[in-house]
């Protein structure tokens, strides 16, 4: 996903004179090596390892009519400069495209300092932001091209894991599989789709896919949901979108199982797949949780 992001954002700079890529060292090597920084020396802007400045500086560009694409690791894009994100963009009424890498524990071996499974929850507290969680490089390209052409506040969360096939980009929930009138509804976000499909292959389930999780598509959930049971699978902090689902179904009695990264600090290194397994986000873990959830209602 990150390779596609870098390739496409470089191409977008060729196409659009109002775009600028703003970096805090991380990622600059690619744009320099690919010749993008040479072609557009004024619009590939590296502020150094200064993440508060990264966001404030990008806001200054936006203030003068440029559309900044701001890129670094998730903890340094969302958590460290969170007040700058809140005030320098949202409060000033400015727009920009924030693109993070290092989703949740993609950098598992790097430890907690480079992990931010809380990022979507944090961004969700801010008004006006669209949060995109693509599940395939083709989706990254579609989302990036769409958001770069816009004027709003967009955050794109890149992950190392990807689904085998892309889902055509839509800001709505997309039905991937339809179950019977008594089927459980499973909302799979971004790269969660592949393990969700594997986990529910033998179950009567309607699978809805989201690559844009904010704003949440409440109408589609109400439209496609059959039985009053919903499973939410998010590849970041568990329960991040629970309130959205509760609000969407406030007039409908329902049960909700929210799967995601556990809130406790999982103090381990290793690999992403090992952390998936530990948090029950691999196919086996999801199957186990969904089966237990459905059995508990029987």
């Amino acid at each position, binding site marked *: 996903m990150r390779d596609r992001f870098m390739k496409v954002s470089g191409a977008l700079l060729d196409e659009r004179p109002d775009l600028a890529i703003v970096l805090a060292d991380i990622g600059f090597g690619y744009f320099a090596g690919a010749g993008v920084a040479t072609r557009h020396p004024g619009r590939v802007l590296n*502020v150094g390892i*200064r993440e*508060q400045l990264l966001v*404030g*500086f990008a806001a*200054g*560009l936006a203030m*003068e*009519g*440029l559309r900044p694409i701001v890129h670094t690791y998730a903890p340094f894009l969302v958590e460290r400069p969170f007040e700058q994100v809140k005030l320098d963009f949202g409060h000033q009424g400015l727009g920009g495209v924030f693109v993070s890498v290092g989703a949740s524990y993609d950098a598992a071996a790097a430890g907690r300092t480079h992990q931010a499974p809380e990022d979507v929850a944090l961004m969700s507290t801010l008004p006006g932001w669209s949060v995109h969680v693509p599940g395939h490089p083709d989706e990254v390209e579609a989302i990036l091209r769409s958001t770069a052409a816009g004027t709003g506040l967009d955050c794109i969360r890149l992950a190392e894991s990807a689904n085998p096939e892309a889902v055509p980009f839509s800001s709505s929930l997309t039905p991937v599989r339809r179950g019977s009138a008594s089927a459980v509804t499973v909302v799979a976000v971004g790269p969660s789709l592949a393990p969700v499909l594997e986990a529910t292959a033998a179950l009567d389930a309607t699978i809805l896919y989201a690559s844009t999780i904010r704003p949440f598509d409440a109408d589609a959930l109400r439209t496609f949901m059959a039985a009053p049971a919903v499973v939410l699978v998010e590849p970041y902090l568990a329960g991040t979108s629970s309130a959205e689902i509760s609000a969407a179904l406030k007039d409908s009695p329902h049960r909700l199982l929210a799967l995601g990264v556990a809130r406790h600090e999982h103090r381990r290194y290793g690999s992403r797949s090992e952390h998936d397994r530990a948090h029950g986000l691999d196919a086996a873990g999801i199957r186990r949780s969904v089966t237990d959830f459905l059995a508990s209602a029987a």
Partner: protein
Amino acid sequence: MQLSARSYEDLPALITLMTGDEKHGRASESTLDVLWVLYNRVLKVDPQAPDDPDRDRFLLSKGHGPMAYYAVLAATGFIPLDALPTFGRYDSILGQHPDRALIPGVELSSGSLGHGLPIAVGVAVALDLKGRAGPRVFCLVGDAELDEGSNHEAIALAGRLSLSRLTVCVIDNGSATHGWPGSIDERFRLEGWSAATVDGRDHDTIEAALSAAQQDRPHVVVAEVE
């Protein structure tokens, strides 16, 4: 108080129209003369065209105690004088920290310290990118505000980028908790800025320092006040 005041001598009376933020009275007094000089002698801004793309940009980073700022904006025609007594009210455009969405001519919504200078650096770079040769970018910060680390990220980068259109004014009323050994202007010079320290109540000196054209580097004016 007649609501037609337009002179420097009127400013203290205008400030007294705004009540409810007495704890920041000192902050407001400290900026008064620099703000007056900026708006009357230095900035190329027009209250009739506050969004003119060729205007100078002024970012008040030190948004605390904005009564002096509002008084100057009123005296120079950016906001109506009769807005001043509404200060802090629910439906007022004038809050205890300024909001660019509410006040014509205000470039920055400020109040949280350490935001204005990084944004000003971005504005200066954007104007370079857009080839607008005319506008200068001014940013006013407080000496205590310089404690915020984000400022030092911006000071370093502005120096490396030789942002000659950027001028920062530091209002130094000696309120930084741990002070600035070796002086504030030395901190900026270290990063490649030109610097001047002036009497923050002497209008002619302030004007000369803020107007000084810089060829190849950003400029800081430290305005010392009591």
